[in-house]
C-alpha cells in the first residue's frame, strides 16, 4: 500500500502536465492513477475530461483508486466511480482554491518579503535566501501534506475519506491565513518603506494607502500601476521627478 501511495504521490505532482482546453487534467490524472488500475477499460475511463485543484487531487486519486479496486469490472460501479470522481473534484476545488491560491499564496509572498527585510535590517547573512525559503515553506508544508494525507486516506478509506475531508475546518483556516497575510503585507510594506532604500517612506506610505483605497475603484494591481505611471508622467511634466 505505501509503495503504491508513494508512486501515485510522485506522479500526482505531474497532474497538470498536458493540461488542455478539452481534456483539462485528464492526462496527468490518468498517469497518476495508472499504478492502481488493472484493466484497459478502467484506463480508458480516466482519460475523460477532469479538473480539480492540484492540492486536493491526492484525495480524489486515492478515493478513485480505492473505488476502482472495489468496482471489479461491473458497469454500474464503474459509472458510479466516474460520477463520484467528477463531483468530488469540483466540490473540493472551490475550498482548495480559496485556501491555497487565495490565502496561502499571498501569505507566502508576504512572509518571504517580511523575513528578507527583517534579516537585512538586523544585518543577518543570506537575507534573500532565508526570505525565499520561508515563503516556500509556509506554502509547501500544507500543500504537500494535503496531497499525501488525502491520497493515503483515500486509498485506505475510499468514500469515507471524502466524508472526513468535508468535516475539516477549512473556512477557519482560510480566514486565519488571510488575516495573517494582511498583517504580514502591512508589516513587510512598512519595513521596506521605512528603510528608504527603494523610495522615501512618505512615497511608500502614500502608495500603499492609495493601493488599499483605490483597489475597489480602479480594479487590479496592473491598472493601479498604470495609473501611477500616468501620474508620474504628469508630475514629471510639471517639474517633479522621483
Amino acid at each position, binding site marked *: 500500500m505505501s509503495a503504491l501511495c508513494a508512486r501515485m504521490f510522485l506522479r500526482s*505532482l*505531474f497532474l497538470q*502536465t*498536458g*493540461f*488542455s*482546453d478539452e481534456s483539462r487534467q*485528464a*492526462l496527468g490524472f*490518468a*498517469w497518476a492513477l*495508472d499504478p492502481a488500475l488493472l484493466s484497459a477499460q478502467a*484506463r480508458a475511463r480516466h*482519460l475523460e475530461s477532469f479538473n480539480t485543484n492540484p492540492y486536493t487531487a491526492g484525495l480524489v486519486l486515492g478515493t478513485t483508486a480505492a473505488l476502482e479496486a472495489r468496482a471489479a469490472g461491473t458497469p454500474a460501479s464503474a459509472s458510479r466511480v466516474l460520477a463520484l470522481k467528477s463531483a468530488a473534484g469540483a466540490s473540493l476545488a472551490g475550498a482548495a482554491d480559496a485556501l491555497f*491560491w*487565495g490565502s496561502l499564496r*499571498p501569505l*507566502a*509572498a*508576504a512572509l*518571504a*518579503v517580511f523575513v528578507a527585510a527583517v534579516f537585512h535590517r538586523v544585518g543577518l547573512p543570506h537575507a*534573500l*535566501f532565508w526570505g*525565499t525559503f520561508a515563503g*516556500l515553506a509556509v*506554502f*509547501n508544508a500544507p*500543500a504537500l501534506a494535503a496531497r499525501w494525507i488525502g491520497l493515503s486516506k483515500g486509498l485506505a478509506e475510499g468514500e469515507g475519506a471524502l466524508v472526513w475531508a468535508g468535516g475539516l475546518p477549512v473556512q477557519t483556516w*482560510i*480566514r486565519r491565513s*488571510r488575516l495573517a*497575510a*494582511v498583517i504580514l503585507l*502591512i508589516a513587510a*510594506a512598512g519595513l*521596506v*518603506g521605512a528603510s528608504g532604500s527603494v*523610495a522615501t517612506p512618505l512615497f511608500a506610505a502614500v*502608495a500603499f494607502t*492609495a*493601493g*488599499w*483605497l483605490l*483597489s475597489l475603484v480602479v480594479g*487590479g*494591481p*496592473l491598472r*493601479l500601476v498604470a495609473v*501611477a*505611471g*500616468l*501620474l*508620474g*508622467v*504628469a*508630475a*514629471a511634466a510639471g517639474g517633479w*521627478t*522621483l
Partner: protein
Amino acid sequence: MIAAVISALELDAASVGPTLLSRPFVVGPLVGTLLGRPLLGAGLGVAIEAVTLEELPLGGCLRISATVAAGVAVWLAAGPFALPAEAAFIAGLAAGWVHARVELFMRGRRVVHVRRAQASLAEGREPRLGLEISSALAAQALATWVVTAAAFLAAGSVLEILWPLLPEALRSGARCAVVAAPWLGAGGLAASLWRKS
C-alpha cells in the same frame, strides 16, 4: 543558460507541482543572483509579484506568465543589456503577456496526447502515458525557452537604443510606476484579503 533556468522554473507554474518555485519572489532573486545582481533581481521580482499576485489560476485562467515576466525583466536589467529597471519591468510584463498567449494556443492543441493514449487503448495496446507526459513537458519547456530568448533579444536590442531617446517625462513616469508597484500591489491585496476575511 538563463533562458533554460527560466524555462525549467516555468514548468512549476502549471505543469509540475505547483510549488511556487515559479513565482516572481523566487525567480527574481534567483536570476538576479545568477547574473551577479541579487538585490536588483529581488526588487524587480517583488514588483512583478505585487502586480500579478491577484491573478489566480482558476479553471485554467491565464492572463500573464509571472515567471516569464520576472525572468525576462531581471535578465534585461542585470544582464548584458543592463536596461534601466523601469524599462526592464515593462518589457518583462510584455514578455509574460506574450507567453500567456502562446500557452493558451498550446492548450488548444494538447488534447492530442489524450487522443493518442485513447487510440492505443482502442487498438488493444498499452497507452504510453509516461511518454506523453514527457513530450508535453519538453514542448512546454521548449516554447518557454523560445519566448524568453526571443523577448530578451528583441526587447533588449530595441529598448537599448530607444529608451534613452524617450522624453524624460515618460521615463520618469515609468520609474514612478515601478517604484510604486510593490506598495500599490501590497495595499490593494491587503484590502482585498481584509474584505474577504
